[in-house]
């Protein structure tokens, strides 16, 4: 039996990612890492959770293994499986097992999307046992002190199917991410895209307006990510109204009346 090894190198974050702290999250995360408590990032999509993870991995100098969860993701997708190569069976670590072996930070993005059986492998890793039983090989991986498990989760979904169970939630230190304050968000947009301050200010104002529509026509207001997209289009010479429609209004909804209203908001701001 042969084991395919992952190397830490490919998971290292080499240059400092741009990240603007919103509050105490950096200190909190470092403390959680030091005390080996897993972290739960809560917040709407596109508000910087993934960027924060990259930043923290860079800051702590640990490899970062990111898994985007989807509704077909099973426990063995995380832990690993046998493959048949030639006439041999070969064990291949899944991302979670790899992260445990490497003492990396393992970030499971949008954990509620994954199948319920994934909790089985997460739970023993997320309490003080810090072990990952690999059922198929009979191994029990013990997480080194540097290892950290982090999940992200968007509480904004109203679906009952997408709620995180208490038994899972209560193993984590939770850090809440919201939309950044306007001044901060302006700085982020300006930095990420290079647009002038006036444009950044208007983009942020527009985002605020879409957030006012949350629950009335929109499921979710525009995220900082969408603003960055719009800003990038503007920088490439797209007219601001067109850029906002393409990068902000259209991605948010297909509903004609809401779209028309967003359209009018865009035309009012730009």
């Amino acid at each position, binding site marked *: 039996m042969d084991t395919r090894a992952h190397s830490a190198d490919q998971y290292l974050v080499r240059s400092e990612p741009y990240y603007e702290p919103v509050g105490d999250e950096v200190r909190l995360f470092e403390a959680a890492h030091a005390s080996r408590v897993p972290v739960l990032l809560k917040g709407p999509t596109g508000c910087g959770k993934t960027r924060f993870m990259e930043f923290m991995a860079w800051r702590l100098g640990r490899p970062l293994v990111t898994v985007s969860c989807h509704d077909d993701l099973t426990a063995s997708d995380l832990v690993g499986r046998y493959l048949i190569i030639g006439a041999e069976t070969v064990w291949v670590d899944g991302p979670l097992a790899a992260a445990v072996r490497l003492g990396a930070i393992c970030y499971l993005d949008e954990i509620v999307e994954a199948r319920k059986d994934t909790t089985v492998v997460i739970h023993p890793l997320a309490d003080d046992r810090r072990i990952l039983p690999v059922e198929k090989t009979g191994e029990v991986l013990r997480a080194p002190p540097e290892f950290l498990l982090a999940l992200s989760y968007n509480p904004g979904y109203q679906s009952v199917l997408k709620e995180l169970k208490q038994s899972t939630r209560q193993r984590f230190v939770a850090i809440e991410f919201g939309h950044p304050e306007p001044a901060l968000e302006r700085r982020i947009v300006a930095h990420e895209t290079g647009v002038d301050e006036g444009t950044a200010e208007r983009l942020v104002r527009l985002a605020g307006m879409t957030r006012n529509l949350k629950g009335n026509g929109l499921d979710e207001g525009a995220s900082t990510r969408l603003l960055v997209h719009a800003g990038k289009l503007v920088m490439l010479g797209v007219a601001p109204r067109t850029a906002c429609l393409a990068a902000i209004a259209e991605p948010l909804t297909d509903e004609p009346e809401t779209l028309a209203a967003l359209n009018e908001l865009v035309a009012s*701001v730009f």
Partner: protein
Amino acid sequence: MNARLSASELEERLEDLLEACLSSRRTAAALVPGLAALERGQQDFVLHWAGVVARSSAELAYQFAAAAPRALAVLGERGAEAWLVQAMDVYDHGSMYAASAALKDLTGFVRSWDAQADAVRFEDAGRVLELFLWGLSGRRLRVAAADEPWTDTETVYLPHEVTLYAARNRNFLVYKAMAALAWAQCRFETFAPALGAAVEASAHPARVRRWLAFLEAVRLGAKLERALPGLARDMRVLQQPAPDARVAAAAAPLADPDAPLEATLAALGAVDLARAPPAWPYVVRLHPERAQEVREARIGRERETFRALLGGLRDAEREEGGAPGAGPGRFEARVSESAATGERTVELFLDGAAVSPPADAASLMQSILQDLGTLPPEYLEPAGAGAYAPSTPAGAAGDDGAAEAEAGAAVYDEWDYARRHYRRGWCVLRSRDVHPGDPAFVWRTLERYRPQIASLKRTFEALRGEDRLHRREPYGDGIDLDAAVAGLADAAAGRELPERLFVRRHRTERSIAVMFLVDMSGSTKGWINDAEREALVLLCEALEVLGDRYAIYGFSGMTRKRCELYRVKRFDEPYGAEVKARIAGIMPQDYTRMGVAIRHITRMLAAEDARTRLLVTLSDGKPDDFGDGYRGEYGIEDTRQALVEARRAGVHPFCITIDEQARAYLPHMYGAANFVLVDDVRRLPLQVAGVYRRLTA
């Protein structure tokens, strides 16, 4: 092209259509000369529509046929159709007399029709403008139509239509500018007490009102320039005619974006009240006394709501902190204003620590800030929970709009296939409970079908979402040993190793919400009703095994004003004694006006969170209603339209029927694959559960 109809042919056809209103003084022959000269296509047009109108009123049809030649000449077919449909709407909602007047006023219609091509109507723009206003920060304003634009600080009233310009987008811009200006009036303290005082103190209140409205448009324009620069730029083209030198000088101080209401009142002294202010098309009228009333009522209400909200917040914080009564529970608020946009934000502190209020409190706080500019200390005294209902936004009181005929009734449009238009607000539907029946009916049914129920349960158990092992998969959780052995043998024999060597667990999760709509019309009396009720009992037994969410409603009614929906089981109601008694209590009632029931049910289903939404109708025949021509094609077409709407809303409709003639019309209504015909009533109970199993397997 077909030849024109001759005079005698025309006369014959008209006599057929208009028979009901003809007499010796009023003959079909009198209509013929006008129609005989028309092209064949136009003749067909008139005859078709005369037939459609005659179904509602032969008298109106006669008047239409008489006036049609001239209408066609000046309006063309499209215009003439609009002219007629408009008159029929008047007939639907008013009287014969009013409808006939609407038909006769052809000149008036022509004038508005010319403008109409570019007109923007409130019904088209209202919803978008409301969402637009919600996007702007501050109090949640509602939008309603009225004769002139004004606001009472909670509702923005906008005109029924805007026809000022020859371009649609320009007319829409007028609407949008009005809405934004009304928003700015609420947002930038137009309705401070000083405004009302200025009007009252004047000898010419009407003139003062007009001038104040104009000057406020100037002052708030400067604020819009800052808050909504794009809109302000677009609005400039609307600022015609330009003010003369004297007015411009008086209004000059208002160009400062920080100008308060006092600046407007000061400018009022510098204008000539005897002259009319420049007639900018988007100026929003002022009714300070009505705004004042609404404002006062709101201030009291919001104070209580806010205090209750703080009470809830304090309790929640204490619970979370784990130490009840830890601090004195004192709230503080810090209001800060952004220099760039004038946007105000509030931070709340409880015993010195920042707390974040619930999301829906944000607009409440903004509303209070708009009225008072700050959060006064008495607002920060938390009260016991009570007045605060998180789901009702502030100012939701008085929500009973004019459209709602009466409490508890819902109003729906109905599709008129002949007009190819909806009849607006045509049906009134009320929901009620089925009167509980004899529970013994359910026991008897369970007893009678005991063996069948047992086997139904077994088949349904097999449907439950369970893990299934998929073999020979390209990837998976484990190795498919059979496949691997065979594959390795292949490989040893020199053939290629196959790729599909794994087993994968596949979990099928059922996420289904299903609604059963039961025909409770009079024609189901007897066997059919028994069979329907038995079918429901069996179905419930089976569905309880399956765990799908389901609801059961019955429908009936008589005439469009008395459509009724009977609740047997809600989605969130357990299948218990009450539901059983209600199933037993399903009794034949009146008629089957199906479209409105489907529209209502669709709305309920669309609100359910499920991957699949099913609407299963149990019926014994065609849609039918008493009187107004619902029977036949009209009813079929309306039902079909309602089903199309349902599909658009993500609902899968399906029909189970025992009408032997159903093959003639059901494919048209439901689509060929979406119905099943049960030819023997006695087999209905077992069939329904079987159909459901096939539908969702």
